[in-house]
């Protein structure tokens, strides 16, 4: 590999040039996941919508797509939760308060709030799917009067893998959200529901007039969608937040493409009705 020396001072803006964000807080929340609160180092604050994504990078390691884990209603800072799965996430998760990472965004399309306001809302979040949906959960809680009933289902593999423990404790007590949780496998500390996330539908009456947001591991979607269809919820009232290999985040590199659709540019949040016909979506 040749030594690279860049001497250019180009007037052309570069969509791949990230901005620096300072880590205000960094907390290891599970064995593999770290929760960061960040602030843009220079220039304007991050201006985003719930459900949008960022390309997060560390120079020398690379970039990964991460959904915002906080609501834009919490001004000036934003949260990200990163699971250690590879080279980039492993390096980012070694960072601590006061250090920086680099971000490009916001990118993609988030939740269509105009379609959710004034409605009964159900959010179904599985595992790390709670992170991007937390941007919407916080938004609804901060603007509670703009929404009707608010149900939140959260499933984790085990109690140890639950994220946002402070939030969970608050939601369990809150009158603003009807919070229901389950774990696939209980341990001696767990006194709640045991079973996959769809078992929550047996104990909670979800009527056909809900707008539903789903985010979780790929396997979860078809089972949850079957439950919703069984309750008469039309497919244009279901929103899915999809995970793909969004390498560039700007609808070019092709890795996240599902049939005609680029997840990073056309999503990652989609109305289910708009993509249910795409055979590679689920």
């Amino acid at each position, binding site marked *: 590999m040749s030594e690279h020396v860049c001497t250019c001072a180009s007037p052309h803006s*570069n969509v*791949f*040039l990230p901005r620096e964000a300072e880590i205000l807080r960094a907390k290891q929340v599970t064995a593999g996941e770290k929760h960061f609160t960040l602030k843009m180092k220079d220039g304007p604050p991050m201006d985003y919508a719930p459900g949008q994504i960022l390309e997060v990078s560390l120079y020398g390691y690379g970039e990964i797509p991460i959904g915002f884990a906080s609501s834009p209603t919490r001004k000036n800072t934003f949260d990200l939760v990163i699971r250690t799965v590879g080279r980039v996430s492993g390096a980012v998760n070694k960072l601590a308060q006061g250090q920086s990472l680099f971000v490009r965004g916001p990118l993609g399309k988030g939740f269509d709030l105009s379609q959710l306001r004034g409605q009964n809302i159900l959010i179904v979040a599985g595992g790390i799917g709670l992170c991007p949906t937390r941007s919407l959960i916080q938004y609804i809680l901060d603007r509670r009067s703009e929404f009707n009933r608010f149900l939140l289902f959260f499933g984790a593999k085990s109690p140890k893998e639950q994220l946002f423990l402070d939030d969970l404790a608050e939601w369990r007590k809150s009158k603003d959200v009807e919070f229901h949780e389950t774990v696939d496998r209980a341990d001696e500390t767990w006194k709640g529901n045991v079973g996959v996330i769809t078992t929550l539908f047996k104990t909670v009456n979800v009527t056909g007039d809900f707008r539903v947001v789903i985010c979780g591991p790929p396997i979860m979607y078809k089972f949850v969608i079957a439950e919703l269809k069984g309750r008469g919820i039309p497919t244009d009232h279901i929103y899915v937040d999809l995970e793909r290999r969004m390498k560039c985040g700007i609808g070019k590199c092709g890795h996240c493409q599902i049939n005609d659709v680029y997840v990073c540019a056309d999503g990652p949040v989609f109305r289910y009705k708009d993509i249910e016909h795409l055979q590679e979506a689920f």
Partner: protein
Amino acid sequence: MTLPSQFIPHGRFEAFVRNLIGARSVIGPVAKKHKFIFAPLKDPKALRLDYDVTLLPPKKVLFPVRQDLVAFDAAGGRSCIAPTPQVLLGVHFYDIKALDQLDVLFQENHADNNWLAQREATTIVGSSIQAVAPRAFWGTVGKEAKPRGHDAFLTKLPDGYLMEIRTPKGEALLAHGDFTPATATQIQQGQSIREDLLDQCAEKLKWSSDEIAHATRAAFGMNAIWEELAKTCFSCGTCNIVCPTCYCFDVQDNWNLDQVSGVRTRAWDGCLTEDFAKISLGAGACENFREERFQRYRHRLMRKTAYLNKKLGGPACVGCGRCSAGCVPDIADPVRIISRILEG
């Protein structure tokens, strides 16, 4: 504004190219053993406008196999966009159509100046096809799309070259050669030569772009056909790499030897390769959204015949035949795949 067409006799063409090389950075088709490539021209004698098709398409001049995006060091990152003026000489019309498509695709959503800036700094001179590649089918694919993004076009006539000027950038090249205004006969001759060529490809598509798009979409769920067609696919991605309209890429960081500075680059990638749509889920688990060979094989064909048609005003295939010629098990030929789908 219609710019005047010009003519240069064969005997003076080499001097024109020599002058051009003296004044600008010029890239054109040259021989590489018994094949052809686009390469920087140092000697006008090396220019081979009689090439049939190049191994790699001219997109590599604007979108290099590896392209630096951002250079970094301890102080942060800096953009690597640094366009340099150049002339891309001798591009066949099908490759111009492919460049037109990439202009649209790099412009949409978030405009990507890593392509657009170099594109703007490049003068493109097309040239008429003098030899037909054995697997080409440019005569019958996407006929509704005409080549747009070029500055001048050369057509070989018996006694010289007709140089049709399309833009002021193209007109600026005339100063380097002994051009004279072309006669109406020469212009007519050039047009006939180009039109007659369209019938010269051995391979032909019998259907319109809309008929093909409709048929391939309808065949999407017929897994048996795709499995049969993709049975001997190596997932090597050669069909992607040689394609003038493929623009998928990977982004990687590389450190310099000091382990502090380095560069973020993009490199051509291919949707046929096994891990193209694979994601990690943690704890060693992963999900591959196009895990089977036939799914990746189908994805390429759908991209070429249907997915991008609305954006591009035609199919994302220009009929160069590079994929057909490059595929080792010879299963990538769009004409054969489309014919299999439409004729059974």
